[in-house]
């Protein structure tokens, strides 16, 4: 895709492009699909896309880099310490997983205000089952996720069959589910989570060698898929992205994976007598969820239908898509992932309190999805948005904590960042509509 000038014909568009490559293809249609790219035209394409409001991951990545630079400059010793980096990765997990579920809901232009407290309730169920009922961890975890899915199904049914706005339904659930958790745990109490496997999720690390193998393997697999897909597309004469672009993206992803593995694999033990290093197991869980969600959204018909319903529900209905079923299913996924997020949070704190998942948990997760690039208007968003945005939110909380910022300022700053992200979303949307995207 290059300069998109609405209303101009192929010939005019090609001429406006001015490239020799475009001229050479004046013999056929779909010039932009077949045009050969060089470095310059690839960069120009990318710049045009950004200008027309097609921002992708750029704002979140820039935000991450500037936040790291800011806190590293202000608190070099503590912020950049090995221990803090590991802490940060675990801090980001519950928000990221919760946000990943919300991406599905937001893709339809709906909202789930109850996802945070649903995660709290599911965590409470888990804690009760392992600690009080002595059930093995997998029974407890499956039950927790099942309860999440039941909650999501109920919400989805109310929204898509009774056509109550999701805002209202999930606000009701937001209040109601807190009551259930309170009843389950008992006023003011907490339930400890006494289970080695659940505890390990956020508190134990994989062996250093395994971390390296996974990081290198994922980097290689990602690069290979991207390059091979492009090659296949070229062979069959299909639309493909410029090679420079594919390579640059693969390089960035690989670098991120390897640098994270390196930092987390450093020995961060406070005493020289022991060694403590490795990637926390929970990061692997989030990684697996990211791959699965990305696959579902990007490569399956079901994912395609989610985007279609979010973009134009009437068009989807006429195309024979069961819109009601899609609506219900995204709430099921949202609450199911909320349950997993609750389990990770329970593991991190080793206990579940009555207010688990309450407070601003949900708003942070929505903020994470939006900061990552998911649109509140529906139809746009990716699973990776949750990871990028979750990291941004965790970075802010972590950095401000180290700076000893008073609580009121932390709230203010996080609120401002969320507002900023939502403004970028709204402005990019305006940009796209004036640029005719």
């Amino acid at each position, binding site marked *: 895709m290059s300069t998109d000038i609405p209303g101009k014909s192929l010939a005019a568009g090609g001429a406006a492009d001015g490239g020799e490559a475009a001229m050479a293809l004046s013999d056929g249609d779909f010039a932009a699909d077949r045009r050969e790219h060089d470095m310059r035209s690839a960069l120009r394409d990318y710049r045009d896309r950004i200008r027309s409001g097609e921002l992708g991951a750029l704002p979140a990545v820039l935000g991450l880099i500037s936040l790291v630079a800011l806190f590293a400059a202000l608190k070099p010793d503590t912020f950049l310490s090995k221990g803090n980096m590991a802490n940060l990765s675990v801090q980001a997990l519950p928000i990221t997983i919760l946000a990943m579920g919300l991406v599905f809901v937001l893709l339809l232009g709906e909202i789930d205000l109850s996802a945070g407290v649903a995660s709290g309730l599911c965590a409470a169920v888990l804690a009760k089952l392992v600690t009080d009922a002595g059930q093995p961890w997998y029974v407890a975890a499956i039950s927790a996720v099942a309860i999440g899915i039941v909650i999501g199904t109920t919400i989805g049914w109310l929204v898509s069959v009774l056509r109550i706005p999701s805002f209202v339904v999930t606000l009701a659930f937001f209040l109601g589910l807190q009551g259930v958790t309170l009843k389950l745990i008992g006023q003011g109490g907490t339930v400890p989570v006494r289970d080695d496997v659940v505890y390990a999720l956020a508190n134990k690390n994989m062996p250093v060698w395994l971390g390296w193998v996974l990081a290198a393997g994922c980097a290689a697999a990602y690069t290979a898929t991207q390059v091979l897909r492009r090659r296949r597309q070229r062979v069959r004469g299909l639309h493909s992205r410029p090679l420079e672009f594919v390579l640059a993206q693969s390089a960035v992803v690989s670098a991120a994976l390897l640098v994270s593995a390196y930092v987390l694999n450093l020995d961060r033990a406070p005493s020289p007598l022991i060694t403590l290093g490795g990637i926390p197991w929970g990061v692997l869980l989030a990684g697996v969820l990211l791959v699965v969600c990305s696959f579902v959204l990007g490569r399956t018909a079901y994912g395609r239908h989610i985007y279609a319903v979010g*973009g134009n529900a009437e068009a989807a209905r006429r195309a024979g898509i069961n819109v009601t079923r899609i609506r219900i299913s995204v709430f099921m996924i949202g609450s199911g992932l909320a349950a997993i997020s609750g389990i990770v949070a329970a593991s991190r704190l080793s206990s579940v309190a009555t207010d688990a998942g309450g407070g601003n948990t949900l708003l942070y997760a929505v903020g994470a999805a939006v900061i990552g690039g998911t649109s509140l208007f529906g139809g746009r968003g990716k699973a990776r948005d949750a990871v990028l945005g979750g990291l941004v939110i965790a970075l802010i909380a972590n950095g401000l904590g180290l700076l000893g910022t008073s609580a009121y300022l932390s709230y203010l700053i996080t609120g401002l960042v969320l507002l900023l992200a939502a403004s970028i979303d709204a402005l990019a949307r305006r940009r796209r509509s004036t640029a005719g995207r």
Partner: protein
Amino acid sequence: MAENGDPVLRLIGLNKSFGAVHVLRDVDFAVRLGEVMALVGDNGAGKSTLIKCIAGIHPIDSGRIEFDGRPVSIDGPRAASALGIEVVYQDLALADNLDIVQNMFLGRERRKGIVLDEASMEEAARRTLARLSVRTVRSVRQRVASLSGGQRQTVAIAKAALWESKLVILDEPTAALGVAQTRQVLDLVRRLADTGHAVVLISHNMNDVFEVADRVTALYLGRVAADVARADVTRGQVVELITAGRSGDLGLAPRTAAESI
């Protein structure tokens, strides 16, 4: 392929009422492969109701429908598309956030196992666009939001042509378009017929009708006033058929035309 043989679709004595309102009265209608049939009539004449009966959205009260010479009952949109009937409604119903290929295959995606077969869908979309000589699209992987009104109409029409459909019905495809884009869409309508589809074109615009149609069916208050070859009528006559139900010795008998009111 483009021959005016037996009709691919024939409606005989079709009646349709909504409660006490008798909207379609003994409608006979036929369209052949390779032919553009213009369906004209004033607002409320029953054009949309007629195509919704063909598309399986409204059940008919009485009358017969024959498709490919065989009597059929079209009891739903899926039955219509299974027969090879595709309708492009006025609002087009494209998803702006999806690209051209994704829109053309929406709801009927090709898969390999559980994975979408993007390559084969892109190839098929490109072939269809090329067959219809659509030359205005820069990339089939463009988001539909980035297209002009005429291009969007083009995509919606190409989508209908993709499914080896025999009959493509277009509801006012040029209503919202400027001069140049109307031109493009009319060319496309013509090519659709020339590549062997039967086309029903609903239009208010006499220029459009006289430019692409082979035949004209005029509806007047739910009755067929005339089914004539375009070459046999003038614009003035068609306008009279639309507004009065008759024109000279064409159209409804004076008494029928009068009592319909």
